[in-house]
């Protein structure tokens, strides 16, 4: 019985490994995937920003100051002396107005002689955290609440672009989550029915998916989004946009789930569970679904960035979300004009979080997908 005792005397670390279950093994492999691992932290950080937007942002999303229209981004500098000669650990310079001799236009330039100290956890505009807890501290902001601090510059109404981008995180990132949740429910339900029962139910679901997939996405989205009445409540618009986005999203997920059900149905261990006398429910939920939850997690993670991009594109085109709602797409819409390109290129800055979020989610999803099959 050499065979039976071959793995008998294991050292403790090896022993732990053999008693690792599915998620344990996936996590081990995921850890080795450095890019995905760190992307995971970035994604978490972005969602944390979305959750605590009021605290993270220096200002509210609609605070404006007509004195600082289209002011350029300031640099955050260290060790300066303010007007009173006191040392400021962190500070920003103020602005001065300059007449462009060629274009004969007024514009703001940085005035190195003015120093506004900047601090962490400073008192600023009061807000309600999660809409409930009253607070007035901000992660970062000017020590004097009325001093101008526009790290990413301002827009045509003199609103702080950084604050607006941070507030936009909430809508942009959550639209992906909500949309994916809707896709997930539809995808698992319909894909599961399709794969487990087969027959005409399968045919019906498959043909529906084929149909939905045959429609070019962009015109479909544009058509549906354009059908949303202009005067509709922004919250309802948000809801309908997610529904429209998930209308396409569920099909891929349904395919994944169906394929998994089909291949698992004839798998010996599923057969063994049936022969053990397990009910249909137990076979599905206890024996089949756990072997592809990791694949679903991966698909979902990969579906979120597509949703985020879709929302951004629709809003950018002006047929998605509209002001006063703040999302990355809505902010980028402001950068459409020629003026932005030449006079206020910082209006493109909200594109950075879009790229970062989409890349991080993609890397994360790839990592989970690769780690999902510990036996490959």
């Amino acid at each position, binding site marked *: *019985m050499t*065979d*039976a*005792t*071959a*793995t*008998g005397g294991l050292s403790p670390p090896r022993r732990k*490994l*053999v*008693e*690792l*279950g*599915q998620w344990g*093994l996936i996590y081990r492999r995921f850890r080795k995937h450095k890019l995905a691992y760190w992307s995971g932290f970035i994604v978490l950080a972005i969602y944390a920003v979305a959750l605590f937007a009021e605290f993270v942002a220096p200002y509210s999303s609609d605070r404006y100051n007509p004195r600082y229209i289209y002011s350029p981004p300031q640099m955050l500098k260290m060790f300066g002396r303010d007007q009173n000669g006191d040392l400021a650990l962190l500070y920003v310079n103020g602005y001065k107005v300059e007449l462009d001799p060629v274009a004969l236009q007024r514009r703001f330039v940085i005035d190195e002689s003015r120093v506004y100290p900047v601090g962490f956890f400073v008192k600023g505009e009061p807000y309600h955290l999660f809409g409930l807890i009253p607070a007035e501290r901000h992660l970062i902001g000017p020590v004097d609440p009325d001093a101008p601090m526009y790290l990413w510059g301002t827009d045509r109404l003199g609103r702080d672009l950084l604050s607006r981008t941070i507030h936009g995180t909430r809508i942009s990132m959550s639209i992906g989550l909500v949309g994916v949740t809707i896709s997930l429910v539809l995808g698992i339900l319909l894909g599961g029915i399709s794969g487990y029962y087969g027959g005409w139910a399968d*045919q019906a679901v498959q043909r529906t998916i084929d149909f939905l997939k045959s429609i070019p996405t962009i015109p479909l989205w544009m058509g549906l989004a354009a059908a949303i009445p202009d005067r509709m409540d922004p919250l309802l618009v948000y809801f309908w946009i997610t529904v429209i986005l998930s209308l396409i999203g569920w099909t891929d997920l349904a395919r994944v789930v169906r394929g998994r059900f089909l291949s698992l149905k004839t*798998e*010996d*261990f599923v*057969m*063994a*569970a*049936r*022969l*053990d*006398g*397990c*009910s249909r429910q*137990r076979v599905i939920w206890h*024996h089949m679904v*756990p*072997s592809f939850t990791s694949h679903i997690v991966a698909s979902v993670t990969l579906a979120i960035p597509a949703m985020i991009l879709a929302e951004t594109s629709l809003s950018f085109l002006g047929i998605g979300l509209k002001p006063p709602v703040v999302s990355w797409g809505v902010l980028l819409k402001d950068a459409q004009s020629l003026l932005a390109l030449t006079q206020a290129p910082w209006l493109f800055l909200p594109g950075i979080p879009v790229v970062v979020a989409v890349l991080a989610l993609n890397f994360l999803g790839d990592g989970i997908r690769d780690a999902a099959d*510990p*036996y490959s």
Partner: protein
Amino acid sequence: MAEAIGSAAGAQSLLELRDVAKVFAPRTTFFGRGKSRPVRAVDGVSFDIRAGETLGVVGESGCGKSTVTRCILGIHEVSSGTIRYRDRDGRMIDLTALSEHERLAYCTDLRIVFQDPQASLNPRLPVIDIVGEVLKVNHLLPRSEIEGRVRELLQRVGLRPEYARRYPHAFSGGERQRVGIARALATNPRLVILDEAVSALDVSVRAQTLNLLKDLQQEFGLTYLFVSHDLSVIEYICDRVVVMYVGQIVEIANAADLFARPMHPYTEALLSALPVPDPAFKRRGRRIHLPGEVADPANRPAGCSFHPRCRFATERCKAETPALRSVAGRTVACHHAEDLALQGVNMGSSPEVQHA
């Protein structure tokens, strides 16, 4: 007819198959014009499994061996025929007449060990859940006692009881198959179906596993239905053997008789492909080359299905299907069984060889 032939006098039968057929409907394509024909995977199969014996089922790939076992286990519904099981009170129950729900009462009596030890164990569950599942869902033991029972079973199949918390990936192929055996034995079954249960294992591990199966059979008074395409394994473990060809039985015999003197040309051909265990003893005949392909169960040749490949085929064989019948105390389906003098093999273990 089948009654008389399938069941030999003597030991009580545990399971009786009568004219069991399984036809797989052709796949319909979306455009509804699939040209495929129904597959008669199992076609009129009758045999008995006697209490306490090991009955072998042998035949080339695709001849319907697994389909028979699946019909017995209720994975497939039979197309026709009956499968009667003698329950613990001695009543004969027709399993094919039971609803899915009623069958559950017998799922603990009839158990299976699968071919692929890797695929048959859920990689997401620890051994204790794999082996204990049947005890749990059928409420055979209180939850608190399941772990103890699983540890006991593991020990019995030659694994350490501490392995109960491990996942299948931590075991070797042979060990995994032992886990599969432990799962089958968990319910104190009466019939264990071993569908190619050792085919996926290395040769050395295979021998150990076969010995373990023999020990367990003795200890628990098990009855085995042992499916294999490997005749040397069949010879080693089986008391009687059923030889199948394209969904039909061509010969049933005691293992010793079958190997010493096959009655059906197909059996002879199978035997001739066996490696001779001891090169000092030369095979009595040459290896018989089987021309052509295994017949397609969807398109069976008329008459004797074996005729396109049979070196004794006559006109009668092409026209008339041979029935399974008694010939000189043996059971065979061949028109010319009486007249053929077919070659058997001497296996190393037979006394005749040792005294030669």
